């Protein structure tokens, strides 16, 4: 079947109101066109899986959605904020206040304890140390890793470190979380546990998740999945009327 570019916003019934709206995104790196006119809506509280082969443009897509990269054409709106109209500092502020990130290897600061790693985004947001520590401890509790609070990442297992990373992403109670292969470095059992913990937490707080993954089993946890090929959304996306 030939890939067909779709506009899920017009073909998928919205479960909630759209939180993220991407319209006609184009992004190139030199002669390589990474995104070629992507339209995408992600609803409030929705878990969206973005799949696709390497080099298809998945990461570029979420970088544009999160305001890390500025598209050459098109518009990204998060809530009522036009991300593409913001300058770099304003986009950084938006990410700090409304967006959380989870990466494949956790990317915790190796010299900080789990507690300090989780408290860090709050400190960056101007929250006092004591209050930040209390909130960070709550999130460690919630993700069932409070016993790791005083350990540094090097002394934890991969799964424990990834839970700390999830706690760090959620501690500021962001509107949306972008998770880039969050279980990619874990074995299947650990990966499943981490994913379940993350989804439980985000569903409780009605947080939107955009999840990049190669793994169909991981994608199956999402409410909806889209497939990116050659910088466009593919017709094979689940939950999408072709």
């Amino acid at each position, binding site marked *: 079947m030939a890939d067909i570019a779709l506009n899920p916003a017009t073909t998928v019934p919205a479960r909630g109101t759209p939180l993220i709206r991407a319209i006609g995104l184009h992004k190139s790196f030199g002669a390589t066109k990474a995104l070629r006119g992507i339209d995408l809506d992600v609803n409030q509280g929705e878990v969206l899986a973005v799949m696709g082969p390497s080099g298809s443009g998945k*990461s*570029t897509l979420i*970088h544009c959605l*999160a305001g*890390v*990269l500025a598209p050459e054409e098109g518009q990204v709106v998060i809530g009522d904020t036009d991300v593409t109209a913001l300058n770099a*500092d304003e986009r*950084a*502020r*938006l*990410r*700090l*206040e409304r*967006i*959380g*990130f989870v*990466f*494949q*290897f956790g*990317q*915790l*600061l*190796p*010299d*900080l*304890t789990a507690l*300090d790693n989780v*408290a*860090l*985004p709050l*400190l*960056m947001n101007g929250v*006092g*140390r004591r209050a930040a520590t209390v909130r960070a401890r709550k999130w460690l509790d919630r993700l069932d890793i409070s016993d790791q609070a005083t350990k*540094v*990442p*090097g002394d934890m297992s991969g799964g424990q470190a990834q839970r700390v990373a999830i706690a760090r992403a959620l501690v500021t109670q962001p509107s949306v979380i972008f998770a*880039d292969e969050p279980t990619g470095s874990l074995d299947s059992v650990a990966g499943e546990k981490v994913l379940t913990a993350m989804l439980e937490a985000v569903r409780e707080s009605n947080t939107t998740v955009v999840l990049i993954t190669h793994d169909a089993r991981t994608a199956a946890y999402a409410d909806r999945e889209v497939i990116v090929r050659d910088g466009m959304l593919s017709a094979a996306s689940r939950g999408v009327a072709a």
Partner: protein
Amino acid sequence: MKPSAARLLLLNGAPAYRRLAEIVAGVALGVGMVLILLGGFLHMPDRDDRVAWRTYGGEEFARADSEAPLPVPTANTVLRLTQPDYFMGGTYTIVRVAAADDTAVTLPDGLALPAPGEYYASPAMAQLIEDHPSDQLGDRFGTPIGERGDELLQGPSDRVVLVGSDWEELAKTYPTQLEDAFPASGSKFNTGLYRTVLAIGAVAVLIPIVLLISIVSQLGASERRERFATVRLIGAGRRAIAGVSGFEMLIATLVGGVLGIGVAAAIRPAASTLELDGSTSFGADLTPPALWTAGAIIAVALLGGATAWWRTFRDDVGALGSSRERAEKKVTAWRSVMLLVGLAMLIGPMIAFRFDAAASEFYNVLMLGGFAITAFGIVVAGPWLTRLASRVLNRFASTAPTVVAAGRLSRHARATFRSVAGLVVAVFIVSLFAGVVSAIEDVVTPRDTPGRLSMDAVVGEVGSPEEVHAVTAAITELEGIEGIAVAYWPTDDQGLLVMTPEDARAIGAVDVPDAPAVSLDLFEMLAGGTDIARDPVTPPVATNSIDESAPSQVFVITDGTAEAKERARTAIETSTVPGRAPLTRADFAAAGTLSFTHELETMAYLGMAVAIGISALSLTVATVAAALDRKRTFALLRLGGMPAAHVRRVIAIEASMPLGATLAASAGLGFFVAWAMIETLGNDMSMTWPDARYWWAVVASVAITAAAVFGSFGLVRRSTEVTSTRFE
């Protein structure tokens, strides 16, 4: 490893060139300093040899007041009298020579000796004479007949006058020596000390160079972690990777070493202006021979290569890279034991001295040992102290940058301290030295004190009533002269000089009894350069009579201006036979310990300046390496919204906290040790504030570090751009 593979490892674009440029710059600076110090060390004997003609040799002969006959002039003999003289707070050397008209003796440079009433001056001395009125200086010597060449001087600032004298007059003067030729070589008593200091300085400069190389190697490993891991993955061994890194550093340090010759040439004019053993240096005296230069460069290059090899070998990047941070071995409080022992060895004698001052020899040994152990103790305890300070910082941290920095410092206390260790030791020693010098200066700097010789008086030796009359006549018309007083040899066997009570009061004596004459201890009144300066002065004692036919000293009382004192000195010198130069109390103190102390102090400050420069560079490189180690994490934090300013603050805190803490701790310890030594061994000395140079050195260390850290911000910002995470 094949050259093509090595090239792939070595040249990773701009970072590699920047890193190599840093190491080349650091090594060039260090080698430049080493070459200057090495040149000074090697040429100290040459400096001595050039002044041997006026310093050594000669035969003592019996004086006129004994029964022995005076030597008679012959074609093969010459009389020489070398003495220090004073001018405007400084000293110069006056060499008086007398020879037969047909003398065959020449100076080492082949020139004929000056005739009586004529003189040669060194260029610096000639300039000094030209710059001042003749009644203050020039009239002391006679008629100028030219300048002496460099081959007879210690250095460019060497101030020496060679004065032709009358044979008979000079023969009667103590301690004139009889020569049959001027010695061409010899070694001064303090040359060994200076050479030791220079050698220690040269070796000390190598320590921060090695630290710099070690840290830059670490930076290189951080920058090329992926490359190293890839090459390990395809089969390269640990030694092969270390070999490549060692070879790279060998070449870089070799290039830096060669450039160091240029650095040495650039800084040599400035280095030449520093006084060493009383004189500045000729450029050639700070230039090592070619063979030594080559040897020093090769030695530094081998040291650099070996250090980089060892550092990379220990870093051991595996085939899978370093996905996990390798924590340092935890530092514990045991590391403070040596420091505590050292401090106990200093404090113990300080307390014991209050109960039993007699065992001071034992206290000396104990305190010197305590000093050495404390110095080592600081280096051993440094990482533990750094960890302690960072934990305190973490405890009170309330912002993200402070928490991140404190976490890093706490977990990498050894590496952090390593980058400032050289500076810590330098600051400790310089602070100790500054403290001790402040106490010495406090004692030896003469002040107008009741009972001591008036600071306005110039005292000179006289041998006859005619000379007293001549001095009186000479000063009559001079500006700024307020009076004259005379001291006479005693008529009894007490040994103290005798004066009229009026004259005694005029020169500063107090509690002078009303009597026909009084005897007083002139040396006690003059002393300003020894421990007895603080002892009370013995008041003059009444005595019966004065033998006016036996004057000993003449005191010219001035209005206190430097010009008037020099006019008085010139008047005394030109009215009396050559003898010990007329002097003031300030001159007496300067001739004692002050000038030598200041020279050592200057060298200590220079050492500190070098340590500061290289430590600042090391600290910056270490900080950047630490930032690059966490490049991915920082970049992803920035992606998550962390402002670039927070990353800059992290870098600034990581660099400034250890420097600030260690500067404060080592300076505090240095002053404490100085205080302990002075309290125990200082014979009522007391420490005062160090002079301005110390504070300038501290300010410079902070400024250089700040500049270096600010300079690194650009690199850190670029390497943590959010777009750099595109392939994460």
